[in-house]
């Protein structure tokens, strides 16, 4: 059984503790910020900038987990732990899985925010 893009329980807990209106604001913030984190991943991977790469992966992991985007969190964690040179050795499509997962997350959050 494929795991859901957003863990319903985690997202509900977030909404219960902070309020619907706030969660909408938080989702919008994430959807605004996340593309630049992915951009950071791409640029730092091309440049071999280990620190920037690790920090971008770290942020995506942290934010993914906040919204219950567990698969995104896991992919980001893998990049963070692997490091830029190891990820580079995976070839030109090394970031494809996380980019695809982010698109799924963004689509799911856009729906969830208005529920």
């Amino acid at each position: 059984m494929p795991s859901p893009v957003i863990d319903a329980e985690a997202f509900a807990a977030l909404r219960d503790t902070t309020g619907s209106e706030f969660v909408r604001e938080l989702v919008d913030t994430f959807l605004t910020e996340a593309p630049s984190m992915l951009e950071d991943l791409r640029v730092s991977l091309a440049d071999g900038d280990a620190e920037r790469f690790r920090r971008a992966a770290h942020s995506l992991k942290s934010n993914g987990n906040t919204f219950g985007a567990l698969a995104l969190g896991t992919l980001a964690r893998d990049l963070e732990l692997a490091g830029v040179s190891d990820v580079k050795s995976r070839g030109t499509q090394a970031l494809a899985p996380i980019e695809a997962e982010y698109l799924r997350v963004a689509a799911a959050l856009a729906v969830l925010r208005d529920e």
Partner: protein
Amino acid sequence: MSDLGAGAARVLVADDNKVNRLLLTRNLELMGHEVHSAENGRVALDLLRKQRFDVVLLDMEMPEVDGFAVLAEMKEDLALRDVPVIVTSSLEGIDHVVRCIELGAEDYLHKPVNPVLLKARIGASLEKKRLRDQQKELLRRFATPEVAKDLEQSGFALGGRRLRATVMFCDIRDFTPLAEAQPPEETIELLNNYYALMFDAINGCGGIVTLMIGDGLMAVFGAPITLPDHEQRAVRAAQEMVELVGLFNRERAAAGKRPIQVGIGMASGEMIAGYAGTKARATYTCIGDTVNLAARIEAHTKIAGRAILIDRATHEALHAGIATESLGAVAFKGFSEAAEVFAVGDRD
């Protein structure tokens, strides 16, 4: 915290990630705290130096100045070292947690931060800070700013050390009949005025009051901070105390009240000084023959009819210019040999 509700605190959230910053701020505000945020370590340090915070939530992973650097700088800064820091991070590996704790972090919360855990950790940190602030306040009340600072830096270790210092005992002569002849409120007011004046003179000369009982007090000069001229300072403090009591008596006379007289006895030499008590309640104290001798000499002021008496060791260390007079050897209870006692005159 006076302008906030009970249990509410001023919290600084330092995190470069906007989602994290917003979420932590929201959770803290829902708990009733006043929250300020910083997007990197440099901004956090600037805010910490400008405003007072009760607790800091610190992310480790930040551009420019990271959390480790913030912890290190806070530890070096006397004004910031006691502000509790809770690290909020999703850094991988236990060694990061250990490093944070070693750098002085109070606690560690893994991100995403669970609001219930956050509430508990904030509560614990604030309680610890409250106790530390209380301890500092007590210290400020009983010690000079220099001594308080020294103790804050060196910490509160129970246990003593051997050192050379001058001990002073002082009390109000015939205090009991005086207290019995007036309403209790007046006695307390008298004691408060008396203590305020004595503290001024003692602290002003570098001494600290270590004990107050009724109308009596004990002070030490030369501990915990070494003072090369502790004998001189103690005698100068005693002279000032007598002068201040003289001025105080003029006010009392104008109000139709009886004058008071003080007796001050001092002795210098080796003693053991340090914190004695329990971890929960300790007091700075001095013990040893020198202390006992000072107490005996103070009691002797009544018999000798002099305001200030000192032992030979104190006398020998005094600069010329302080008028003293030998009263000969006195046999004190508890001492096998008679001790020579000197009366100190008024200042010129």
